[in-house]
């Protein structure tokens, strides 16, 4: 490994070093402010080092990681989400008792895991990334130890994530037995040969799809989502919904583009079924919910269904659409859970519909942000979600995937209903205000303001983001 390799790896090294530093500092000097500052500084340095590292792209560092523009694009998103989650957690944890500092250590490790996934080009790095992410999440989901719901969610997540890791591992073993290689590139080369239709090969891919399906929370592997979303602390929910899904999806997309999924009809059919059922299940079940976190959980299931359309679509538009949609989804989901976070207090998260009734007249600012986020999830103009949905539908229509596109359209209409229900609650009359006004922390306000600004900016002027995405996509194909 030479200096160029190290330069390319610098964002990763920064994240790793920051987590070690944070751990050591906690051991000697336990202070919430100091830890947050170190964490955010780590994210900032990692983001800054991307500028230097981008000079040496693309570069394969060891057989495990390929650092290219594609990886960097998702790395940027992951760092954005990581720093957003950390900043939101600050005021959230201030309201809670107990040790707060280790939280950031886990967030940093989860971020590192996601970052590895975005650049993985080998089964070993794939599995390392997944495990780094999952193990950190076990701790994060159950972080509020005094809350039974949090612990319950943590156990649930632990068991299911462990099972899904086992599936992935077994799938890898089968593929290795069949092809004799573990790198994605060699795998793709072998896969274009004749032995691809052998049963173990397909079974291996099937098992990996199941494992990845758990991480992405697509139907029928979604059962953990609502419970974990509801039980986990709000900023952790934001992390699961954005970073962990986004990184796994980035990997899936890269993997499928390499292997060129369209040549295997059975897998195409499986993904179509998964996408269609995810959209319907997510949206229809969201209609029945009264808990805002559960609504957002089901909504995220359906949104993953929308993004899967881009996996099915071919051509350069598909991966660009996926990247754009995920960017919009990251910003929107982070913003939505950010609102839940800033409104939560020490006793419970602000997840019942009652918490939002008449919010616009009590806290117009926060309610405005939440409305913007919900409109973006629903795909209404002036928001990033609108352009994102447009892009995904365009990619689908371009590949003549009429079934999924029509299903997507129907689901957008169903989705509107429950997004609007929250908006309606916020705009309805508060009546006599029994609930005291939650004080919104400054850090929370800054994060929400930034996200809203990004949301509108991308919604109104998406062309610079598309330009960036196109540059990353071209390298890949």
């Amino acid at each position, binding site marked *: 490994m030479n200096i160029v390799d190290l330069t390319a790896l610098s964002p990763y090294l920064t994240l790793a070093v920051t987590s070690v530093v944070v751990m050591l500092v906690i051991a000697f000097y336990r202070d919430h402010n100091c830890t947050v500052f170190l964490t955010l500084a780590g994210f900032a340095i990692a983001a800054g080092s991307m500028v230097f590292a981008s000079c040496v792209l693309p570069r394969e560092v060891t057989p495990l990681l390929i650092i290219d523009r594609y990886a960097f694009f998702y790395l940027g998103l992951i760092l954005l989400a990581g720093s957003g989650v950390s900043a939101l957690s600050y005021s959230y944890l201030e309201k809670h008792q107990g040790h707060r500092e280790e939280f950031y250590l886990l967030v940093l490790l989860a971020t590192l895991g996601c970052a590895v996934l975005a650049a993985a080009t080998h089964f070993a790095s794939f599995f390392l990334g997944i495990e780094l992410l999952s193990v950190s999440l076990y701790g994060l989901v159950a972080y509020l130890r005094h809350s039974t719901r949090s612990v319950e969610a943590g156990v649930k997540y632990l068991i299911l994530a462990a099972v899904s890791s086992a599936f992935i591992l077994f799938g890898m073993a089968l593929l290795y037995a069949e092809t004799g290689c573990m790198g994605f590139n060699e795998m793709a080369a072998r896969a274009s040969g004749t032995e691809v239709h052998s049963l173990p090969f397909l079974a291996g891919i099937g098992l990996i799809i199941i494992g990845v399906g758990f991480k992405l929370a697509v139907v029928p592997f979604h059962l953990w989502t609502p419970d974990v979303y509801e039980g986990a602390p709000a900023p952790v929910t934001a992390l699961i919904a954005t970073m962990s899904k986004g990184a796994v999806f980035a990997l899936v997309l890269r993997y499928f583009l390499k292997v060129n999924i369209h040549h295997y009809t059975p897998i195409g059919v499986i993904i179509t079924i998964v996408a269609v059922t995810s959209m319907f299940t997510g949206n229809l079940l969201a209609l029945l919910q009264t808990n805002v976190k559960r609504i957002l959980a089901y909504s995220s299931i359906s949104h993953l269904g929308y993004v899967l359309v881009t996996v099915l679509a071919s051509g350069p538009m598909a991966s660009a659409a996926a990247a754009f949609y995920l960017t919009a989804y990251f910003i929107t989901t982070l913003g939505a859970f950010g609102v839940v976070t800033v409104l939560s207090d020490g006793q419970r998260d602000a997840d019942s519909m009652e918490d939002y009734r008449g919010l616009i007249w009590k806290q117009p600012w926060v309610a405005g942000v939440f409305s913007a986020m919900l409109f973006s999830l629903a795909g209404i103009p002036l928001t990033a979600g609108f352009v994102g949905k447009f892009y995904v539908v365009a990619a689908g229509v371009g590949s003549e995937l009429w079934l999924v596109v029509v299903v997507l359209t129907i689901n*957008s209409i169903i989705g509107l209903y429950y997004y609007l229900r929250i908006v309606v609650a916020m705009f309805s009359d508060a009546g006599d205000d029994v609930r005291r006004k939650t004080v919104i922390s400054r850090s929370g306000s800054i994060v929400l303001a930034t996200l809203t600004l990004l949301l509108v900016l991308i919604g109104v002027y998406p062309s610079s983001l598309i330009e960036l995405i196109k540059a990353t996509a071209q390298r890949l194909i």
Partner: protein
Amino acid sequence: MILAWLIIIPLVGGLAAWVLDRKDGGAARWISLAALALDAIVVIFFWSRPSVQLDLTRGAWLAELNRPWIPQLGIDLHLAIDGLSLVFVALTLFLGIISVICSWTEIRCRVGFFHLNLLWILAGILGVFLALDLFLFYFFWELMLVPMYFLINIWGHEHRVYASLKFFIFTQAGGLLMLLSILALYFVHGTGTGIYTFDYSLLISTKMSAHASFWIMLGFLMAFIVKLPVVPFHPWLPDAHTEAPTAGSVILAGLLLKTGAYGLLRFVQPLFPDAASSIAPIMMILATVGIIYGAVLAFGQSDLKRLIAYTSVSHMGFVLLGVFANSTTSLSGAIMQIVAHGVSTGALFILVGMIQERIHTREMDRMGGFWSDAPRLSALGLVFALASLGLPGFGNFVAEFMILLGSYRAQIPITIVAAGGLVLAAIYSLWIVQRVFHGERAQYLRIMDTTMRETIMLAAMIVVIFWFGVFPRPLLTISEPVLKGMTMTTFHEHPLQSTGGGE
């Protein structure tokens, strides 16, 4: 650039009204009024230019703005105005000003936010009438829904939550089908020519198979006939109109429905001439069903506002009939109907709003005998009821006459049935007058007569509708060259043959 300003002024005005609003709401009202007046002045100034006058007679584009927006996807910020758009823009600004004035005393809470929504709806509608890029068109099409949703949801009447949701979901569903069609057209054009663009002027020459053309047309058609609305897709309308605040009803009836008509004229007919003429007989039948159905249901209502909402269904049936009868006469009639219905129904909604403000009910059972207490109000009511039934001398008469004249040449039986709608219109209009203004006096205290503000506002509307009734030529000459060009591209053959069916 003038076209961009037309949209920017209400957007900025709305924000200013919201930010600068104080407790009494006076600032918000005056700012909104000023913004719309400024917009109207810009339009009048533009209109009076000699070069514009010349272009109007030729049916050419009067002004154009074309800037790249998302060049990677072939999306431009392409706005343009011709005679057809000009009529719609003028109507939008007129009714926009009226709707600010008519909410002057009705809206008392959250005045600033109300005017933000009002002006943003108008900006969205103006955008729809000016956009020549299909993505931009869809953008504005969706943009106007959200503030309208808030308008109904926050300032509406008893069942506002249900009504606003229904409105949003119906129109959004139509819009998404249109999105699919827009994208399909984009790819058909792109694969055929290698140029991927959403530009109307390029897409209009797209070559496609009859099969593809039919399906793509259907997506556009769905969006527009939900908005118009055409009968099986109308259930959102009575609820939305009834529950909306007065200004919301005026904008819904006067402008939002018209975006559907505009879409049919601007997109369905020119982009898919053959597919449109193949579906014309069905559309004309649906139009006639709408005319009769709306009128019959109107007669059955006890809620005055709901009654007027149903008359809109009936009147919009005439617009649809005119559009698909496909002759210059019927198309001009449809334009006339759009303007006349916008003004007369808008005025009727304002009258209901005034009555509701005074006696706090819309139930006709609890009205009656207003004439003795409020002669001005009642006389104004009578005038608009007569206009609505299509009495000669009002714009509505000219419009319906031209539509029937035009469609008679295409489909005789349908036209005969549709003409029956006029009789029903007379029945329900006189029924309103009889029950509300005449008859036994209800047990209310004296009802207050119109104030100066209300009188002037309604008088202005009477002048407009009366002017078009006796002197329709100026309005028709503005849009006629465009419509002529349209029928020329639409009809390769004689109009009698192209609409088929009736022969």
